[in-house]
């Protein structure tokens, strides 16, 4: 195949004072691949995401998007290059309804225009049949249709999680690479099955995913490969089944 991976980390390191949160981590997300990132709490998973997205600057190593270094780019620069991300603590647009949250994403052009839309809410009053249809369909899929006119801030935690997942899917242009940070946490297991189907369908349409997860059903069902961090270091990687049986991973992560 020889296709350039959509994302590559080379010996990425991030320190906070005396603590090395991410220690020479290297990994590749192949184009159209789904890679799982697992590890005990505090092992550096979310910090790795923050480095990829430019919220934190890596202290050493390199981060490449489709072969091009993005390590020095700012966060909005990276967002514009087609990477989407969800957060452990959800970020929904609080002053807007559930439906508006999704419609904003569909009408996305650039970060600057999105901000303008947020401040000039009347723009959304204009009938935009396509955005509305797409948003409603997504809300149906994640079980939020009943709450479409509710303020996003009034949703429960799990519902905000689902909304932020739907927002990633609503984004146009659709991001080529999506970072999911514990998308299943706090979400009802039956709904998690739907999310897994979604991810699979999305991949079939050419997207790639890097997924932080503790829910092993998700990992086993959709990941091509799994990378395991412990105390900031990569301790194992490979097919989900093999990683699950690796004694170091069992000791550090599964605790059996």
């Amino acid at each position, binding site marked *: 195949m020889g296709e350039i991976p959509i994302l590559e980390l080379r010996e990425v390191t991030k320190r906070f004072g005396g603590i090395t949160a991410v220690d020479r981590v290297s990994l590749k997300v192949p184009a159209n691949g789904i890679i799982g990132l697992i590890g005990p709490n505090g092992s550096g998973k979310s910090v790795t995401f923050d480095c990829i997205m430019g919220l934190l600057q890596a202290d050493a190593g390199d981060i490449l998007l489709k072969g091009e270094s993005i390590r020095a780019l700012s966060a909005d620069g990276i967002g514009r290059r087609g990477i989407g991300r969800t957060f452990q603590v959800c970020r929904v647009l609080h002053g807007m309804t559930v439906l508006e949250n999704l419609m904003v994403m569909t009408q996305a052009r650039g970060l600057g225009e999105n901000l303008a839309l947020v401040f000039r809410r009347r723009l959304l009053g204009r009938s935009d049949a396509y955005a509305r249809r797409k948003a409603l369909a997504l809300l149906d899929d994640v079980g939020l249709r009943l709450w479409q006119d509710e303020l996003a801030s009034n949703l429960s935690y799990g*519902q905000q999680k689902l909304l932020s997942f739907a927002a990633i899917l609503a984004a146009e242009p659709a991001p080529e690479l999506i970072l999911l940070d514990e998308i299943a946490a706090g979400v009802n297991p039956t709904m998690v099955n739907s999310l897994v189907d979604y991810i699979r369908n999305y991949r079939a349409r050419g997207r790639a995913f890097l997924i932080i997860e503790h829910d092993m059903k998700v990992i086993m069902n959709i990941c091509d490969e799994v990378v395991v961090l412990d105390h900031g270091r990569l301790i194992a990687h490979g097919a989900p089944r093999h990683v699950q049986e690796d004694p170091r991973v069992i000791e*550090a992560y599964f605790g059996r």
Partner: protein
Amino acid sequence: MSIIGPNGAGKSTVLRALYGKAIVRSGRIRFQGEDITGLRTHGICRRGIALAPQGRSVFPYMSVRENLELGAYIRRDRAAVRTDSMELCRRFPVLNEKQGMPAGALSGGEQQILELARCLMLRPSMIVMDEPSLGLSPRAVAMVFETLVEMRATGVTILIVEQNAKQALRISDRAYVLELGRNRYEGTGESLLNNVDVRKLYLGGR
């Protein structure tokens, strides 16, 4: 006892009503025979009910140890408080490793463990937890549920809301399924685990 159900069913709202953060418009809440409906949260704690609301509620600029000690705020027996603190650090090694660090520097999952430990510092007669396993690694989840089972064995009553429904039902004497703000199913943990509809609708059984 577990409360499970789809997102937005009202599970957290029920807990918030219990500890005085949501207004109860009708109905009563009784604890050990006493009507505690509408009691303010500190009144709830003084009756020996320890609370771990959903999400992070550690004091980020205080150390892990200070957060732990705050859990025993209303206790007078200082020596026993210190012993309890040491025992919890032994049980949850991450607390031991990071006891001098500001709690805000811990990862999400580690903060969750700190909150459980903080509840236990009260030596409560009842623990109310909203999603105790949220964001925890499998190993940490096992530790949390083991701890809850041990607490139950010492006579502590435990009420949890959990999306990790299977694990919760396995250890539950009694469980309730809420949906759209209403009781949908109830029974022993085991009976709900074996209920075909419950499995399909709420437990992710395909």
